[in-house]
Structures are given as C-alpha cells and as structure tokens.
C-alpha cells in the first residue's frame, strides 16, 4: 500500500512536469477557444449584414406584406419585366429578387414563385418569405370561398403536443434533443478520456521497458502494484488536465460572452436561423430549454457518469497497460489496439444512431449491458430514463469485468515486462496467462 502511494505520486508528478503535457494542457483549450470564437465571430458578421431583397409582385396580392426587420430589407419594385428586374437586382448587388408571377387563381401560386440570387440563399431567409406568402395565400383562398376575416384570423394557432409518460413524467421533442446532447456529451467525454489517457498509460509502460528500469522496480514491488500505480497516477494527471481545460474554457466563455455578446456553445446555426424568424420565439425556446434541462434526471446522470467513468476507464486502462507490457515499442501496438478500439467505436455508433432512434430498444439495451460498450451507451440512454435495475445490473457487470480484466492484465503485464526483443502473438499472450 505504501508502495502504491509512492508509485502513484511518481507517475503523477512525472506526467504533470512533462513539458509536452504542460504545453498541451494550456495550449489546447486556447486553440479550441480560438477556433470557436473565430467561427462564432464569422457567423455573427454574416448575420449582421442587412440583406437587401427586391420583390417583384406581378400578382399584386403580397407586396404590402413584406416588412423590414433587422436582417432583411424589402424593396417592392414597380411593375416591370422580370428580366429588367433581375438586371436591376444584380446591378444594385441586392441579396436576391423574389418574383411572384401574375396568376389567374391563387392555387396557381403553388408553383411559379421564384427567388433569384447570386448564391444559394440562407435557409432562414426563404423560410421567412415562404411563411408570409403561404399565410396570405391561405387567407386569400378562404376569403374567396366566403369566409370572413375574423374566422380566418381565428384559424391560426399553433398546436404543440404535450408528451407524457405513463408514470406522469413530462417529455417533449425538444427534451429528446437535449437528452441526446447531454447523454452524448457524457459518452463522448468518456470515449475521449479513455483514448487519450489509455494511450498515455501504454506509453509509460513501454518507456519503463525500453529504459530497462522495470526489473529494478519489480524486484522491489509487485508488478500488480506497479500497474495499478501507473493507472491511478496517470488518471489523476488526466483529471488534472481535464479540470484545467474545463476551468480555462469556462473562464474564456464568460469573458467571450461578455465581450462579444456571444453565447458560446449554443452558437449552432439553427439557433441563429431561428433567431431570424423572430426574437419572441427564440426567447420561448430558451425558456423551454431551461425547463427541459431541469426535468432531466440530472442527479442520476451525474452519479452514473462518475460510476461509469471510473469503471469504464479503469477497464480499458488495464487493457492498455497489458498491451504496453506485451510489446517492445509503440509501433508494435497496432495489432493489439484494434480490438480495444473496436468496441469503443461500436459503442459510440450505437449511442449516436440506435439510441436516438429507440433508446429502450433491444440493441440499445444489450449494448448498455456489455461491459466494453456499456459505459458509453448507458450514459447516452440514461437521460431518456432507464429503469434502476438495468443501471445496477450494468454497473455490477462492469465492475466485475473490471476486476477480472485487472487480474488478467496483471498476468500479461507480469510476464510481458520481462520479455525483450520479441514481438508477441495472441497465442503467446494466452500462454503467458498460464505461467
């Protein structure tokens, strides 16, 4: 136990004093922040430009409907030929020209309305225009059929389906999206952590082999203690790095949002497009998002995140350590790494594709029990509400497998660290288990 503490301390200090580790710790969040802010800045620049749109309404029904807002400015052209209007629009470098042909009946407008522009227009612009025209056209048809304006006005209201489980839990489509984001983020974080720090453990084992210090050390400590010490030490270094990243990114986003007035992270284009449609609506969405987040099983998610993080990470870490012990150099690791990466990648795919479709389907359930995939898949499922027995079963299975894997990995490790100059095959690894 005393040895374990010594080893963990050495591994930890050695990692965090390493120059490239320090550089990566402070540089990568800056790089990422820089990248995000460049993208955010560019898209905000793009949205701030006022778009000039010429409207040639030969039908005469719609011209008066177009009102300017902070992004779009409409100019109703006097009656003229289409070709003329196009030339004019192009010459004044307008964003585009909306052409509504003259028609005999409103129904003929199904086709024929055209938007001419230099490039493909932004989704938000066309959607906004279509909605205006659609609504007016519908009203016109109704009026033609003798329905009075009051009735028409009463016709327009939004239907929003309330989703509720039998147990009385309210859900919504928006909630599903959020659940996916939360679960996905948790699963993906674990996935990244395993790959980055698993590799780091492997390299540190190989380093001890190539520097030939290993035999001196295991004449003092048990190989298993050395392996566990390495895993824990590297993990602590990893958590330190992650924590620093979170803090730096957090600070940066606070600074950035106050300076630039941007909302980092929610800068997805769809949200921007939505903002174009109407400020009122985007506010409603923001409120709904906040409400949905509070409705997520957050305590459950956070608790399980820690359990799966520890279990899943340690499971893979011991496999990485065993691989490091089996080989002489990093170039020999490929054949052994593939079988480790496969279940991880499968887990992410199952999480992204199957869990979205059907969070409680057979495939999702099975993969959330298999220990090599359960950490990622179950974390993605949990926001959708997973029965407690399934969670417990899966975690117990994970930790049992983890113990088994550590035992197995320690055996390979014990033999492997003293084998030099051989490139082992799987057959040989199995033989080692019997030594």
């Amino acid at each position, binding site marked *: 136990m005393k040895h374990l503490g010594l080893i963990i301390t050495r591994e930890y200090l050695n990692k965090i004093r390493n120059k490239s580790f320090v550089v990566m710790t402070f540089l990568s969040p800056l790089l990422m922040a820089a990248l995000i802010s460049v993208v955010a800045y560019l898209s905000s620049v793009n949205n701030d430009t006022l778009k000039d749109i010429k409207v040639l309404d030969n039908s005469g029904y719609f011209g008066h409907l177009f009102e300017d807002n902070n992004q779009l400015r409409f100019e109703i052209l006097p009656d003229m030929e289409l070709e003329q209007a196009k030339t004019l629009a192009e010459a004044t470098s307008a964003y585009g020209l909306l052409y509504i042909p003259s028609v005999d009946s409103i129904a003929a407008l199904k086709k024929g309305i055209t938007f001419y522009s230099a490039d493909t227009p932004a989704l938000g612009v066309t959607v906004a225009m279509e909605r205006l025209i659609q609504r007016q056209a519908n009203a016109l048809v109704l009026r033609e059929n003798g329905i009075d304006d009051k009735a028409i006005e009463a016709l327009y209201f939004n239907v929003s389906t309330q989703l509720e489980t039998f147990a009385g839990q309210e859900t919504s489509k928006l909630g599903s999206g959020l659940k996916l984001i939360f679960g996905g983020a948790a699963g993906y974080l674990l996935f990244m952590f395993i790959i980055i720090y698993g590799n780091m453990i492997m390299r540190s084992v190989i380093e001890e082999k190539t520097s030939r210090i290993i035999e001196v050390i295991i*004449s003092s400590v048990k190989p298993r203690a050395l392996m566990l010490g390495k895993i824990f030490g590297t993990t602590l270094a990893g958590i330190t790095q992650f924590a620093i990243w979170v803090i730096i990114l957090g600070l940066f986003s606070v600074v950035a949002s106050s300076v630039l007035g941007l909302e980092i992270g929610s800068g997805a284009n769809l949200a921007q497009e939505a903002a174009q449609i109407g400020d009122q609506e985007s506010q409603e969405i923001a409120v709904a998002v906040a409400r949905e987040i509070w409705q997520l099983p957050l305590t459950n998610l956070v608790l399980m995140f820690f359990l799966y993080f520890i279990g899943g990470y340690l499971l893979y870490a011991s496999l990485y350590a065993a691989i490091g012990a089996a080989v002489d150099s990093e170039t020999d690791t490929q054949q052994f790494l593939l079988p480790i990466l496969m279940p991880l990648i499968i887990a992410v795919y199952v999480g992204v594709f199957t869990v979205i479709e059907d969070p409680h389907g057979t495939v999702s359930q099975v993969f959330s029990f298999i220990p090599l995939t359960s950490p990622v898949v179950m974390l993605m499922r949990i926001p959708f509400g997973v029965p407690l027995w399934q969670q417990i079963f899966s975690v117990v299975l994970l930790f049992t497998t983890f113990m088994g894997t550590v035992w197995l990995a320690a055996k390979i490790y014990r033999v492997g660290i003293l084998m030099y100059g051989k490139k082992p095959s799987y057959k040989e690894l199995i033989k080692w288990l019997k030594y």
Partner: protein
Amino acid sequence: MALLDVNEVSKSFGSFTALDRVSLSVPKGSIFGLLGPNGAGKTTLIRIVNQITMPDQGNVYLDGAPLAPHHISDIGYLPEERGLYKSMKVGEQALYLAQLKGMAKSEAKAQLKMWFERLDIGHWWDKKIQELSKGMAQKIQFVVTVLHRPKLLIFDEPFSGFDPINAQVIQSEILRLRDEGATVIFSTHRMESVEELCDHIALVHQSKKILDGNLTQIKRAHLSNRFKVGIQCENHDQIFKAIGEKFSITPTVFKSVYQGVQFSLQLSYQDAPNAVLTELSRYGMVYHFVAEVPSANDLFVQTIAQNSNNN
C-alpha cells in the same frame, strides 16, 4: 552457515524447462559466482530469489526463513538488463528507488549523499539521466542497489559498461561491502573477475546445476597431476626423447628467460612428484616445475564440455 538456501527449485515456461531441481547454498559472507552459458537459467534463478518469478517447485530460504515479501528490503539486485528513468533527475530517482526498498526518505537522502561523495558523483544530483554517459548511469545503479544495506547483494554482470578504472572502483566497493558483512552473488561471463573475487561458485548448464562448492576445493578436486617442466640443457631433442621413455610427456611452450627443453608432464597417482623432480634434475638444471592448476575458465569450459557430451 548459509545465508541463502535454494532447495530443489524447478521452473518451466510452457514446455521449456528453465530450471530443473536446482539446489544451492550460498555461505554467509562469501562472494558466490553463479556461472553458466547464456540461457542456462541463471537469470530465472536470480529472479526467483528476488521474488519476481515464483518457482513451480522447491523452496528458497533466506537466513533460514522461507522467502517472503518482507525479504525484499534484505536483497539488493543489479540486473543485467538495467536502466533508469531517462527524464527524471538523478537524486529524485535514487530517492524513489530507495523508498521502494523500504527506506525512509530522510535516511535514504543521507545515505545517498554519503555514497555520492564517496564515488565522487555528488554534482550529478540535479542532472537528468539522459545527460549522463552509460558508465555514469551504471555508477548510480550500483549505488541504488547497495544503498539500503541489504544482507544479500546480487550483481548480474556488474562491470559491463565500466572503463577499467571505474571497474576497479566498483570491484573494491564490492569487496568492502563483503567485509562489512554482506553476502554477494555474482553472475558473470568474465572468468578473470571470478578468479579474482569469488570464493564459491556454482555452474548451471541446461537448467541443471552441474558443479558447485568452494572454488579452491573444486580446483583441488580437478587437479590433474600434470606439471609443466623446464630443464636447462644443450641437446633438446635427445633429452626430450630420453625423458619420454620414462614418463608420459608432451611438448609445450611457456615463457621463460631460460633456454631449454619444455614439456608437460603427466604423472600417475603412484608417482611421487619429489622423486620425479630428483630424477629430472639429472638431465640439467630444472628451472620450472609447476603443478598445473585449472583456472576458473578451464573448469567452466571442461565441465560444460563434459556435461554436453553426456547428453
């Protein structure tokens, strides 16, 4: 009194037998040469003593007690495949390794300072291993091995990588540690070091121990009753022929300031060497009459050759 007793130890890896019922007894205070060709099983045996590998069968006793984890601090081991953390500072690294052997940090620090002074390497404390030469790193490894004052020291090829001057320094340090009460197991292929240092040896070949005991006694047992003789005379051929009629001799060459006939003389066990010497002196002045004593190298080569033929 034996410090280390290896009792019928066997170890196999899969179908390969690394050690086959090997027994050894290392006397307290001795320098014990563990010899054998490459792949004979020496390293496996050493690893078993260090509890790195567990024997399939047999027992090992240290100071009369069955080998147990607490013995780790009683043993200092310098493996043949040795190295240090390249990017760690010398002092930090030595402290870490000493603490793994169970030393308290303050004690380890004091001992390290003492050793670094003694070997004149005090100014390396804050250097990284990658800044040092191979020989320098070897010195640090030596210090780390002996630092915790173990009862049993195991050196596997301790002189490789040292220049003759530093090899001499390390050799005298080993002798001093022995004089201070440590027992040393010494594995090497350099027979002149065995000759110089070891008082006991064991020879391992093809997983079996084929010879062991006190080096002087072994040599005595391997005396062949053969003498190298030089007689100062004028007519070499005639005298060689005359002696050859009475004794079994073969011509041989050795360096001498004298001129004369030189040969190797094989006596039977009935012959009394003194009587033979008297007889030989009638042919001229006997300037050389020395019993041939097998060197460690001879013992090694002969015993291995004999045992390989038997197989």
